[in-house]
Protein backbone atom coordinates (compact mmCIF):
# COMPACT_ATOMS: atom_id res chain seq x y z
CA UNK A 1 0.00 0.00 0.00
CA UNK A 2 1.60 3.25 -1.09
CA UNK A 3 1.35 6.40 1.01
CA UNK A 4 -1.73 8.54 0.63
CA UNK A 5 -1.39 11.95 -0.99
CA UNK A 6 -3.68 13.72 1.43
CA UNK A 7 -3.31 17.25 0.05
CA UNK A 8 -6.12 19.29 -1.39
CA UNK A 9 -6.58 22.59 -3.20
CA UNK A 10 -8.96 25.51 -2.88
CA UNK A 11 -8.40 27.87 -5.79
CA UNK A 12 -4.66 28.46 -6.13
CA UNK A 13 -3.86 27.34 -2.58
CA UNK A 14 -2.70 23.91 -1.53
CA UNK A 15 -3.38 22.45 1.92
CA UNK A 16 -1.51 19.51 3.45
CA UNK A 17 -4.71 17.73 4.32
CA UNK A 18 -8.42 18.37 3.92
CA UNK A 19 -9.44 18.66 7.58
CA UNK A 20 -10.13 22.25 8.63
CA UNK A 21 -11.88 23.77 11.63
CA UNK A 22 -15.29 25.37 11.03
CA UNK A 23 -15.64 29.09 11.52
CA UNK A 24 -16.84 29.96 14.99
CA UNK A 25 -15.96 26.55 16.36
CA UNK A 26 -12.25 27.06 17.01
CA UNK A 27 -12.30 30.73 17.96
CA UNK A 28 -8.99 31.97 16.59
CA UNK A 29 -7.07 28.78 17.20
CA UNK A 30 -5.07 29.36 20.38
CA UNK A 31 -7.69 27.75 22.59
CA UNK A 32 -7.19 24.39 20.85
CA UNK A 33 -3.40 24.51 20.75
CA UNK A 34 -3.13 22.92 24.21
CA UNK A 35 -4.78 19.78 22.86
CA UNK A 36 -2.81 19.19 19.63
CA UNK A 37 -0.45 21.08 17.29
CA UNK A 38 -2.63 23.15 14.98
CA UNK A 39 -0.17 22.58 12.14
CA UNK A 40 -1.57 19.04 11.99
CA UNK A 41 -4.73 20.42 10.37
CA UNK A 42 -5.17 21.52 6.79
CA UNK A 43 -6.25 24.94 8.01
CA UNK A 44 -7.83 26.86 10.84
CA UNK A 45 -10.87 28.81 9.69
CA UNK A 46 -11.21 31.68 12.13
CA UNK A 47 -14.45 32.94 13.67
CA UNK A 48 -16.21 35.35 11.31
CA UNK A 49 -14.79 38.79 11.93
CA UNK A 50 -16.57 42.10 11.39
CA UNK A 51 -15.23 45.60 10.92
CA UNK A 52 -15.92 46.76 14.48
CA UNK A 53 -15.79 45.01 17.86
CA UNK A 54 -19.11 43.35 18.47
CA UNK A 55 -20.77 42.30 21.70
CA UNK A 56 -23.00 39.65 20.20
CA UNK A 57 -26.27 38.45 21.63
CA UNK A 58 -27.31 38.15 25.27
CA UNK A 59 -27.33 34.78 27.03
CA UNK A 60 -28.47 32.01 27.06
CA UNK A 61 -26.77 31.54 23.73
CA UNK A 62 -27.06 27.81 23.38
CA UNK A 63 -29.51 24.97 23.72
CA UNK A 64 -28.76 21.30 23.29
CA UNK A 65 -31.07 19.48 20.86
CA UNK A 66 -31.27 15.79 19.85
CA UNK A 67 -27.87 15.06 18.26
CA UNK A 68 -27.31 18.76 17.80
CA UNK A 69 -27.34 22.19 19.37
CA UNK A 70 -28.57 25.69 18.70
CA UNK A 71 -26.27 28.65 19.04
CA UNK A 72 -27.00 32.32 18.93
CA UNK A 73 -23.67 34.03 19.39
CA UNK A 74 -24.48 36.92 17.09
CA UNK A 75 -20.95 37.21 15.72
CA UNK A 76 -19.29 38.42 18.92
CA UNK A 77 -15.74 39.44 18.10
CA UNK A 78 -12.96 41.97 18.56
CA UNK A 79 -13.30 43.63 15.15
CA UNK A 80 -10.87 43.40 12.25
CA UNK A 81 -8.20 45.70 13.72
CA UNK A 82 -7.68 43.82 16.96
CA UNK A 83 -7.99 40.54 15.07
CA UNK A 84 -5.22 41.41 12.65
CA UNK A 85 -3.09 42.78 15.42
CA UNK A 86 -3.42 39.99 17.96
CA UNK A 87 -4.82 36.79 16.52
CA UNK A 88 -3.29 36.53 13.06
CA UNK A 89 0.35 37.11 14.10
CA UNK A 90 0.19 34.23 16.61
CA UNK A 91 -1.15 31.87 13.94
CA UNK A 92 1.34 32.99 11.31
CA UNK A 93 4.23 32.82 13.73
CA UNK A 94 3.24 29.27 14.61
CA UNK A 95 3.05 28.34 10.90
CA UNK A 96 -0.65 27.52 11.08
CA UNK A 97 -2.52 27.73 7.77
CA UNK A 98 -5.28 30.27 8.15
CA UNK A 99 -8.52 30.93 6.33
CA UNK A 100 -10.09 34.15 7.53
CA UNK A 101 -13.87 34.26 7.72
CA UNK A 102 -15.46 37.67 7.32
CA UNK A 103 -18.99 38.94 7.93
CA UNK A 104 -20.61 42.31 7.36
CA UNK A 105 -23.91 44.00 7.90
CA UNK A 106 -23.77 45.74 4.54
CA UNK A 107 -22.22 45.02 1.18
CA UNK A 108 -19.80 47.88 1.80
CA UNK A 109 -18.57 46.39 5.04
CA UNK A 110 -17.56 43.21 3.22
CA UNK A 111 -15.62 45.41 0.83
CA UNK A 112 -13.89 47.17 3.71
CA UNK A 113 -12.96 43.84 5.30
CA UNK A 114 -11.60 42.52 2.01
CA UNK A 115 -9.43 45.61 1.58
CA UNK A 116 -8.05 45.18 5.09
CA UNK A 117 -7.09 41.59 4.28
CA UNK A 118 -5.39 42.26 0.96
CA UNK A 119 -2.10 43.28 2.51
CA UNK A 120 -1.99 40.63 5.23
CA UNK A 121 0.77 38.10 4.81
CA UNK A 122 0.32 34.48 5.75
CA UNK A 123 -3.35 33.88 5.14
CA UNK A 124 -4.46 31.26 2.66
CA UNK A 125 -8.02 32.17 1.75
CA UNK A 126 -10.97 34.27 2.79
CA UNK A 127 -14.29 32.66 3.61
CA UNK A 128 -17.13 35.07 3.07
CA UNK A 129 -19.87 34.30 5.58
CA UNK A 130 -23.06 35.47 3.92
CA UNK A 131 -25.20 32.99 5.77
CA UNK A 132 -25.12 33.64 9.50
CA UNK A 133 -28.64 33.12 10.84
CA UNK A 134 -27.85 34.92 14.09
CA UNK A 135 -28.44 38.45 12.97
CA UNK A 136 -31.26 40.76 13.85
CA UNK A 137 -33.22 40.27 10.66
CA UNK A 138 -33.23 37.53 8.10
CA UNK A 139 -32.95 40.19 5.39
CA UNK A 140 -29.30 40.37 6.41
CA UNK A 141 -28.67 36.80 5.33
CA UNK A 142 -27.22 37.68 1.98
CA UNK A 143 -27.05 34.01 0.94
CA UNK A 144 -30.84 33.89 0.85
CA UNK A 145 -31.02 35.60 -2.51
CA UNK A 146 -28.77 35.39 -5.56
CA UNK A 147 -28.71 39.18 -6.04
CA UNK A 148 -27.54 40.04 -2.56
CA UNK A 149 -25.10 37.11 -2.52
CA UNK A 150 -23.56 38.28 -5.77
CA UNK A 151 -23.35 41.87 -4.57
CA UNK A 152 -21.27 40.81 -1.56
CA UNK A 153 -18.97 38.59 -3.60
CA UNK A 154 -18.38 41.34 -6.14
CA UNK A 155 -17.51 43.80 -3.37
CA UNK A 156 -15.03 41.31 -1.92
CA UNK A 157 -13.50 40.46 -5.30
CA UNK A 158 -13.10 44.15 -6.20
CA UNK A 159 -11.35 44.92 -2.96
CA UNK A 160 -9.20 41.95 -2.25
CA UNK A 161 -7.10 41.91 -5.38
CA UNK A 162 -4.33 39.38 -5.95
CA UNK A 163 -4.43 35.67 -5.63
CA UNK A 164 -6.24 35.06 -2.36
CA UNK A 165 -8.96 32.46 -2.99
CA UNK A 166 -12.48 33.58 -2.13
CA UNK A 167 -14.86 31.05 -0.64
CA UNK A 168 -18.56 31.85 -0.23
CA UNK A 169 -20.31 30.24 2.74
CA UNK A 170 -23.91 29.40 1.98
CA UNK A 171 -27.03 28.71 3.98
CA UNK A 172 -29.12 25.53 3.60
CA UNK A 173 -32.25 27.52 4.50
CA UNK A 174 -33.08 28.34 0.90
CA UNK A 175 -35.45 26.98 -1.68
CA UNK A 176 -32.72 26.32 -4.23
CA UNK A 177 -29.12 26.17 -3.01
CA UNK A 178 -27.82 25.27 -6.46
CA UNK A 179 -29.14 28.56 -7.83
CA UNK A 180 -27.39 30.53 -5.09
CA UNK A 181 -24.19 28.54 -5.61
CA UNK A 182 -24.23 29.10 -9.36
CA UNK A 183 -24.72 32.81 -8.96
CA UNK A 184 -21.73 33.27 -6.65
CA UNK A 185 -19.61 31.03 -8.84
CA UNK A 186 -20.49 33.23 -11.79
CA UNK A 187 -19.49 36.19 -9.67
CA UNK A 188 -16.06 34.65 -9.36
CA UNK A 189 -15.66 32.73 -6.13
CA UNK A 190 -12.97 30.06 -6.04
CA UNK A 191 -14.81 27.77 -3.68
CA UNK A 192 -17.96 27.25 -1.66
CA UNK A 193 -18.41 26.44 2.02
CA UNK A 194 -21.48 24.27 2.67
CA UNK A 195 -23.34 24.39 5.02
CA UNK A 196 -23.92 27.00 7.65
CA UNK A 197 -26.39 26.22 10.44
CA UNK A 198 -30.14 25.77 9.94
CA UNK A 199 -32.42 28.26 11.60
CA UNK A 200 -34.06 26.62 14.60
CA UNK A 201 -35.69 27.27 17.95
CA UNK A 202 -36.08 25.53 21.29
CA UNK A 203 -38.81 26.46 23.73
CA UNK A 204 -38.09 25.78 27.40
CA UNK A 205 -41.21 24.04 28.63
CA UNK A 206 -40.45 25.10 32.22
CA UNK A 207 -40.41 28.82 31.50
CA UNK A 208 -42.67 28.39 28.42
CA UNK A 209 -40.46 30.89 26.55
CA UNK A 210 -37.84 30.45 23.81
CA UNK A 211 -34.72 29.08 25.50
CA UNK A 212 -32.28 31.36 23.69
CA UNK A 213 -32.23 35.04 24.52
CA UNK A 214 -32.11 35.67 20.77
CA UNK A 215 -35.15 33.36 20.36
CA UNK A 216 -33.90 31.62 17.20
CA UNK A 217 -30.46 30.08 16.75
CA UNK A 218 -28.39 28.08 14.31
CA UNK A 219 -28.75 24.29 14.38
CA UNK A 220 -25.49 22.34 14.04
CA UNK A 221 -24.14 18.89 14.85
CA UNK A 222 -24.85 15.34 13.63
CA UNK A 223 -28.57 16.07 13.34
CA UNK A 224 -27.96 18.19 10.24
CA UNK A 225 -25.47 15.93 8.49
CA UNK A 226 -28.02 14.50 6.01
CA UNK A 227 -28.89 18.05 4.97
CA UNK A 228 -25.21 18.89 4.51
CA UNK A 229 -24.56 15.77 2.44
CA UNK A 230 -27.56 16.55 0.25
CA UNK A 231 -26.50 20.17 -0.29
CA UNK A 232 -22.91 19.20 -1.12
CA UNK A 233 -24.08 16.44 -3.46
CA UNK A 234 -26.49 18.73 -5.33
CA UNK A 235 -24.00 21.54 -5.68
CA UNK A 236 -21.12 19.28 -6.72
CA UNK A 237 -23.35 17.68 -9.30
CA UNK A 238 -24.22 21.05 -10.80
CA UNK A 239 -20.74 22.59 -10.42
CA UNK A 240 -18.24 19.72 -10.41
CA UNK A 241 -15.20 21.96 -10.83
CA UNK A 242 -15.77 24.22 -7.85
CA UNK A 243 -14.04 23.08 -4.66
CA UNK A 244 -16.39 22.71 -1.73
CA UNK A 245 -15.42 22.99 1.93
CA UNK A 246 -17.99 20.66 3.41
CA UNK A 247 -19.28 20.79 6.97
CA UNK A 248 -22.27 19.85 9.06
CA UNK A 249 -22.28 17.26 11.80
CA UNK A 250 -19.00 15.56 11.05
CA UNK A 251 -17.82 13.79 14.18
CA UNK A 252 -15.67 10.93 12.92
CA UNK A 253 -13.71 9.75 9.91
CA UNK A 254 -16.69 7.96 8.41
CA UNK A 255 -18.74 11.15 8.49
CA UNK A 256 -15.90 13.11 6.86
CA UNK A 257 -15.63 10.49 4.13
CA UNK A 258 -19.36 10.78 3.51
CA UNK A 259 -19.01 14.49 2.77
CA UNK A 260 -15.95 13.87 0.58
CA UNK A 261 -17.78 11.22 -1.46
CA UNK A 262 -20.64 13.70 -1.87
CA UNK A 263 -18.22 16.23 -3.34
CA UNK A 264 -16.28 18.04 -0.62
CA UNK A 265 -12.64 18.95 -1.32
CA UNK A 266 -12.13 19.72 2.36
CA UNK A 267 -14.11 19.05 5.53
CA UNK A 268 -14.52 21.50 8.37
CA UNK A 269 -15.07 20.29 11.91
CA UNK A 270 -17.48 22.39 13.95
CA UNK A 271 -19.63 21.21 16.82
CA UNK A 272 -17.60 18.00 17.19
CA UNK A 273 -14.78 20.07 18.70
CA UNK A 274 -17.10 21.02 21.53
CA UNK A 275 -17.67 17.39 22.49
CA UNK A 276 -14.06 16.51 21.94
CA UNK A 277 -11.22 19.05 21.83
CA UNK A 278 -9.09 16.73 19.70
CA UNK A 279 -11.92 15.85 17.30
CA UNK A 280 -10.36 17.44 14.23
CA UNK A 281 -7.05 15.61 14.65
CA UNK A 282 -8.76 12.32 15.34
CA UNK A 283 -11.06 12.74 12.31
CA UNK A 284 -8.08 13.52 10.11
CA UNK A 285 -6.41 10.27 11.17
CA UNK A 286 -9.55 8.22 10.76
CA UNK A 287 -10.26 9.65 7.32
CA UNK A 288 -6.74 8.95 6.19
CA UNK A 289 -6.98 5.34 7.40
CA UNK A 290 -10.36 4.84 5.72
CA UNK A 291 -9.13 6.20 2.39
CA UNK A 292 -6.02 4.05 2.51
CA UNK A 293 -8.11 1.03 3.43
CA UNK A 294 -10.29 1.60 0.38
CA UNK A 295 -7.23 1.73 -1.85
CA UNK A 296 -7.13 5.43 -2.59
CA UNK A 297 -3.63 6.77 -3.24
CA UNK A 298 -4.73 10.32 -3.82
CA UNK A 299 -7.33 12.02 -1.66
CA UNK A 300 -8.56 13.94 -4.67
CA UNK A 301 -9.78 10.74 -6.34
CA UNK A 302 -12.31 10.34 -3.55
CA UNK A 303 -13.88 13.78 -3.98
CA UNK A 304 -17.36 13.33 -5.38
CA UNK A 305 -16.84 9.58 -5.84
CA UNK A 306 -20.50 8.87 -5.04
CA UNK A 307 -21.43 10.56 -8.31
CA UNK A 308 -19.37 8.18 -10.41
CA UNK A 309 -19.70 4.48 -11.16
CA UNK A 310 -17.80 2.02 -8.97
Amino acid at each position, binding site marked *: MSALDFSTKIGSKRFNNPIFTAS*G*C*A*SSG*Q*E*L*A*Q*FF*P*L*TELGAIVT*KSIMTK*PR*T*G*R*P*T*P*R*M*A*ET*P*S*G*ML*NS*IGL*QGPGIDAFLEKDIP*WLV*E*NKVKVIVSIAGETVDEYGVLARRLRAVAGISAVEVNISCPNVENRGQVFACHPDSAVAVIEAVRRNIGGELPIVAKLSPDVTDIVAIASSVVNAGVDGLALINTLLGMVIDTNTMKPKLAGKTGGLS*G*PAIRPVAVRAIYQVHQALPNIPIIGMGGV*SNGRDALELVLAGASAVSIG*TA*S*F*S*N*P*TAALFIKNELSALLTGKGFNDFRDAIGFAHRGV
Partner: protein
Amino acid sequence: MSTQKINKSAMQMQAEVISNKKAGPYNHIVFAVGEMAANSRPGNFVAISIDGEASSLILRRAFAIYRATDKGVMGGSIELVIAPYGQGSKWLCSRNVGDFVDLVGPLGTSFGIPTTNANTMLIGGGYGSAPLFALAEVLKNRGCRVDMVLGASTASKIYAPLEGKRSVSSLTLTTDDGSAGIHGQISEAIPRLIREFGTEVIYSCGPMGMLAAVAKIADEFDISHQCAVEEAMACGIGVCMTCVVPIKDPSGVKMVRICIDGPVMDGSQIIWDKKDVLDHL
Protein backbone atom coordinates in the same frame (compact mmCIF):
# COMPACT_ATOMS: atom_id res chain seq x y z
CA MET B 1 3.89 25.88 19.63
CA SER B 2 4.88 29.13 21.32
CA THR B 3 3.21 31.13 24.03
CA GLN B 4 0.05 29.11 24.24
CA LYS B 5 -1.58 30.14 27.52
CA ILE B 6 -5.25 29.27 27.33
CA ASN B 7 -6.35 25.92 28.84
CA LYS B 8 -2.74 25.59 29.88
CA SER B 9 -2.86 22.45 31.98
CA ALA B 10 -6.02 20.95 30.50
CA MET B 11 -5.97 17.39 29.27
CA GLN B 12 -8.49 14.92 27.96
CA MET B 13 -8.64 11.48 29.57
CA GLN B 14 -10.68 8.40 30.34
CA ALA B 15 -11.19 8.69 34.08
CA GLU B 16 -12.22 5.73 36.20
CA VAL B 17 -14.98 6.07 38.76
CA ILE B 18 -13.45 4.93 42.04
CA SER B 19 -16.33 5.85 44.31
CA ASN B 20 -19.91 7.00 43.91
CA LYS B 21 -21.99 7.68 47.01
CA LYS B 22 -25.28 9.35 47.75
CA ALA B 23 -24.90 12.44 49.96
CA GLY B 24 -28.38 13.72 50.69
CA PRO B 25 -29.87 14.83 47.38
CA TYR B 26 -26.41 14.82 45.77
CA ASN B 27 -23.95 12.23 44.54
CA HIS B 28 -20.37 12.47 45.65
CA ILE B 29 -18.24 10.85 42.94
CA VAL B 30 -14.48 10.26 42.93
CA PHE B 31 -12.50 9.80 39.72
CA ALA B 32 -8.96 8.55 39.24
CA VAL B 33 -7.32 11.23 37.13
CA GLY B 34 -3.59 10.76 37.68
CA GLU B 35 -1.49 13.86 37.20
CA MET B 36 -4.51 16.03 36.41
CA ALA B 37 -5.14 16.29 40.15
CA ALA B 38 -1.86 18.11 40.73
CA ASN B 39 -2.92 20.93 38.41
CA SER B 40 -6.41 21.38 39.85
CA ARG B 41 -7.08 24.43 42.03
CA PRO B 42 -10.24 25.40 43.92
CA GLY B 43 -12.59 26.98 41.37
CA ASN B 44 -11.45 24.89 38.41
CA PHE B 45 -13.96 22.62 36.75
CA VAL B 46 -14.01 19.55 34.54
CA ALA B 47 -16.16 18.78 31.47
CA ILE B 48 -17.53 15.26 31.08
CA SER B 49 -19.03 13.47 28.08
CA ILE B 50 -22.41 11.89 28.62
CA ASP B 51 -23.82 8.50 27.67
CA GLY B 52 -21.38 7.05 25.14
CA GLU B 53 -20.93 7.29 21.42
CA ALA B 54 -24.48 6.60 20.28
CA SER B 55 -25.92 9.26 22.57
CA SER B 56 -28.12 12.04 21.28
CA LEU B 57 -26.62 14.25 24.01
CA ILE B 58 -23.61 15.66 22.26
CA LEU B 59 -22.33 18.25 24.71
CA ARG B 60 -20.18 17.81 27.79
CA ARG B 61 -21.44 18.84 31.19
CA ALA B 62 -19.32 21.05 33.43
CA PHE B 63 -18.78 20.27 37.11
CA ALA B 64 -16.86 22.23 39.71
CA ILE B 65 -14.06 20.29 41.32
CA TYR B 66 -15.07 19.66 44.92
CA ARG B 67 -11.63 18.42 45.91
CA ALA B 68 -8.46 17.28 44.16
CA THR B 69 -6.06 14.90 45.86
CA ASP B 70 -2.64 14.79 44.36
CA LYS B 71 -1.45 11.51 45.79
CA GLY B 72 -3.68 8.80 47.14
CA VAL B 73 -3.89 5.03 47.06
CA MET B 74 -5.21 5.30 43.51
CA GLY B 75 -2.84 8.08 42.41
CA GLY B 76 -4.32 11.52 41.78
CA SER B 77 -8.08 11.85 42.12
CA ILE B 78 -10.75 14.50 41.87
CA GLU B 79 -14.12 14.57 43.58
CA LEU B 80 -17.35 16.07 42.29
CA VAL B 81 -20.68 16.79 43.96
CA ILE B 82 -23.50 16.32 41.50
CA ALA B 83 -27.20 17.07 41.71
CA PRO B 84 -29.09 14.48 39.64
CA TYR B 85 -31.27 16.89 37.68
CA GLY B 86 -31.57 16.21 33.94
CA GLN B 87 -30.40 13.48 31.58
CA GLY B 88 -26.69 14.28 31.84
CA SER B 89 -26.31 14.53 35.59
CA LYS B 90 -28.57 11.52 36.15
CA TRP B 91 -26.46 9.46 33.80
CA LEU B 92 -23.33 10.48 35.65
CA CYS B 93 -24.85 9.76 39.05
CA SER B 94 -25.73 6.25 37.88
CA ARG B 95 -22.13 5.33 36.97
CA ASN B 96 -20.69 2.38 38.82
CA VAL B 97 -17.28 2.01 40.37
CA GLY B 98 -14.99 0.77 37.60
CA ASP B 99 -16.79 2.63 34.81
CA PHE B 100 -14.80 5.13 32.78
CA VAL B 101 -15.92 8.58 31.70
CA ASP B 102 -14.37 10.89 29.13
CA LEU B 103 -13.20 13.93 31.09
CA VAL B 104 -11.44 17.16 30.17
CA GLY B 105 -9.83 19.24 32.90
CA PRO B 106 -8.80 21.13 34.83
CA LEU B 107 -10.53 24.05 33.14
CA GLY B 108 -11.14 27.69 33.93
CA THR B 109 -9.73 30.14 36.41
CA SER B 110 -9.36 29.34 40.10
CA PHE B 111 -10.08 31.45 43.16
CA GLY B 112 -7.43 34.06 43.89
CA ILE B 113 -5.77 33.59 47.27
CA PRO B 114 -4.93 36.68 49.37
CA THR B 115 -1.19 37.16 49.79
CA THR B 116 -1.64 38.30 53.40
CA ASN B 117 -3.92 36.67 55.93
CA ALA B 118 -7.41 38.16 55.73
CA ASN B 119 -10.88 37.59 57.11
CA THR B 120 -12.68 35.68 54.37
CA MET B 121 -16.29 34.69 53.99
CA LEU B 122 -17.25 31.78 51.71
CA ILE B 123 -20.84 31.85 50.56
CA GLY B 124 -22.37 28.85 48.79
CA GLY B 125 -25.81 28.00 47.47
CA GLY B 126 -26.97 24.45 46.62
CA TYR B 127 -24.25 22.39 44.88
CA GLY B 128 -22.42 25.71 44.65
CA SER B 129 -20.89 24.97 48.01
CA ALA B 130 -18.83 22.18 46.42
CA PRO B 131 -15.66 24.10 45.47
CA LEU B 132 -15.69 26.15 48.67
CA PHE B 133 -14.45 23.42 50.99
CA ALA B 134 -11.18 22.96 49.15
CA LEU B 135 -10.86 26.73 49.03
CA ALA B 136 -11.41 26.91 52.79
CA GLU B 137 -8.53 24.52 53.33
CA VAL B 138 -6.17 26.58 51.19
CA LEU B 139 -7.23 29.81 52.90
CA LYS B 140 -6.84 28.33 56.35
CA ASN B 141 -3.36 27.11 55.48
CA ARG B 142 -2.57 30.68 54.48
CA GLY B 143 -3.65 31.80 57.93
CA CYS B 144 -6.94 33.34 56.89
CA ARG B 145 -10.05 33.40 58.99
CA VAL B 146 -12.71 31.44 57.11
CA ASP B 147 -16.40 31.96 57.78
CA MET B 148 -18.69 29.83 55.72
CA VAL B 149 -22.31 30.57 54.95
CA LEU B 150 -24.32 27.94 53.11
CA GLY B 151 -27.85 28.37 51.90
CA ALA B 152 -30.46 26.30 50.13
CA SER B 153 -34.19 26.11 49.66
CA THR B 154 -34.44 23.46 52.36
CA ALA B 155 -32.21 21.70 54.90
CA SER B 156 -31.62 18.52 52.91
CA LYS B 157 -30.20 20.49 49.97
CA ILE B 158 -27.32 21.93 51.93
CA TYR B 159 -24.13 20.18 51.03
CA ALA B 160 -21.84 20.40 54.05
CA PRO B 161 -19.92 17.21 54.76
CA LEU B 162 -18.38 16.77 58.16
CA GLU B 163 -14.78 16.71 56.98
CA GLY B 164 -15.42 19.92 55.05
CA LYS B 165 -16.11 21.79 58.26
CA ARG B 166 -12.64 21.24 59.69
CA SER B 167 -11.16 24.26 57.97
CA VAL B 168 -13.78 26.84 58.83
CA SER B 169 -13.90 29.19 61.79
CA SER B 170 -17.68 29.38 61.68
CA LEU B 171 -20.44 27.77 59.68
CA THR B 172 -23.82 29.47 59.24
CA LEU B 173 -26.71 27.81 57.49
CA THR B 174 -29.73 29.49 55.95
CA THR B 175 -32.80 27.91 54.41
CA ASP B 176 -35.63 29.51 52.50
CA ASP B 177 -38.14 27.39 54.41
CA GLY B 178 -36.51 27.67 57.81
CA SER B 179 -35.92 23.94 58.09
CA ALA B 180 -32.34 24.52 59.22
CA GLY B 181 -30.26 27.49 60.35
CA ILE B 182 -31.49 31.01 59.70
CA HIS B 183 -34.89 31.29 58.02
CA GLY B 184 -34.70 33.25 54.76
CA GLN B 185 -32.55 33.87 51.72
CA ILE B 186 -28.82 33.67 52.19
CA SER B 187 -28.34 37.31 51.18
CA GLU B 188 -30.53 38.53 54.04
CA ALA B 189 -28.20 37.02 56.64
CA ILE B 190 -24.92 38.20 55.18
CA PRO B 191 -24.68 41.90 56.12
CA ARG B 192 -24.91 41.11 59.78
CA LEU B 193 -22.30 38.34 59.48
CA ILE B 194 -19.89 40.59 57.59
CA ARG B 195 -20.04 43.08 60.41
CA GLU B 196 -19.71 40.37 63.04
CA PHE B 197 -16.67 38.68 61.45
CA GLY B 198 -15.02 41.78 60.00
CA THR B 199 -14.99 40.16 56.57
CA GLU B 200 -12.43 41.55 54.12
CA VAL B 201 -12.83 39.20 51.16
CA ILE B 202 -15.93 37.36 49.96
CA TYR B 203 -15.90 34.20 47.86
CA SER B 204 -19.19 32.97 46.48
CA CYS B 205 -20.55 30.17 44.36
CA GLY B 206 -24.13 29.27 43.56
CA PRO B 207 -27.11 30.34 41.49
CA MET B 208 -26.68 33.60 39.55
CA GLY B 209 -29.45 35.30 41.54
CA MET B 210 -27.62 34.63 44.79
CA LEU B 211 -24.31 35.81 43.35
CA ALA B 212 -25.92 39.04 42.19
CA ALA B 213 -27.32 39.67 45.67
CA VAL B 214 -23.91 38.98 47.23
CA ALA B 215 -22.25 41.29 44.70
CA LYS B 216 -24.58 44.08 45.74
CA ILE B 217 -23.73 43.59 49.41
CA ALA B 218 -19.99 43.40 48.69
CA ASP B 219 -20.31 46.65 46.80
CA GLU B 220 -22.15 48.33 49.68
CA PHE B 221 -19.48 47.20 52.13
CA ASP B 222 -16.80 47.96 49.55
CA ILE B 223 -15.05 44.63 50.01
CA SER B 224 -13.59 42.46 47.32
CA HIS B 225 -15.78 39.65 45.97
CA GLN B 226 -14.74 36.69 43.88
CA CYS B 227 -17.59 34.64 42.54
CA ALA B 228 -17.76 31.45 40.49
CA VAL B 229 -20.44 32.05 37.86
CA GLU B 230 -22.46 29.67 35.71
CA GLU B 231 -23.77 29.98 32.19
CA ALA B 232 -24.79 27.40 29.58
CA MET B 233 -21.54 26.01 28.15
CA ALA B 234 -21.20 24.17 24.87
CA CYS B 235 -17.43 23.58 24.76
CA GLY B 236 -15.84 24.49 28.10
CA ILE B 237 -12.54 25.33 26.40
CA GLY B 238 -13.12 28.77 24.95
CA VAL B 239 -13.90 28.00 21.31
CA CYS B 240 -17.67 28.49 21.05
CA MET B 241 -18.53 31.80 22.78
CA THR B 242 -21.77 30.50 24.29
CA CYS B 243 -20.79 30.84 27.96
CA VAL B 244 -20.31 34.58 28.24
CA VAL B 245 -21.19 36.98 31.01
CA PRO B 246 -21.33 40.74 30.51
CA ILE B 247 -18.69 42.79 32.28
CA LYS B 248 -18.19 46.53 32.52
CA ASP B 249 -16.07 48.03 29.80
CA PRO B 250 -15.17 51.56 28.70
CA SER B 251 -17.23 50.91 25.54
CA GLY B 252 -20.24 49.78 27.59
CA VAL B 253 -20.46 46.01 27.79
CA LYS B 254 -17.94 43.32 27.07
CA MET B 255 -18.88 39.67 26.93
CA VAL B 256 -16.25 37.38 28.41
CA ARG B 257 -16.13 33.61 28.29
CA ILE B 258 -16.55 32.13 31.73
CA CYS B 259 -14.95 28.85 30.71
CA ILE B 260 -11.55 30.50 30.31
CA ASP B 261 -11.87 33.97 31.89
CA GLY B 262 -14.01 32.39 34.61
CA PRO B 263 -15.76 30.68 36.26
CA VAL B 264 -14.10 32.70 39.04
CA MET B 265 -14.51 36.39 38.33
CA ASP B 266 -14.45 39.73 40.09
CA GLY B 267 -18.04 40.23 41.22
CA SER B 268 -17.75 44.01 40.95
CA GLN B 269 -16.98 43.80 37.24
CA ILE B 270 -20.03 41.77 36.25
CA ILE B 271 -23.15 43.49 34.99
CA TRP B 272 -25.78 41.55 36.89
CA ASP B 273 -28.93 43.14 35.54
CA LYS B 274 -29.93 41.67 32.19
CA LYS B 275 -31.81 44.85 31.39
CA ASP B 276 -28.63 46.91 31.63
CA VAL B 277 -27.02 44.56 29.14
CA LEU B 278 -29.84 44.63 26.63
CA ASP B 279 -29.72 48.41 26.63
CA HIS B 280 -26.15 48.22 25.44
CA LEU B 281 -26.48 45.60 22.69
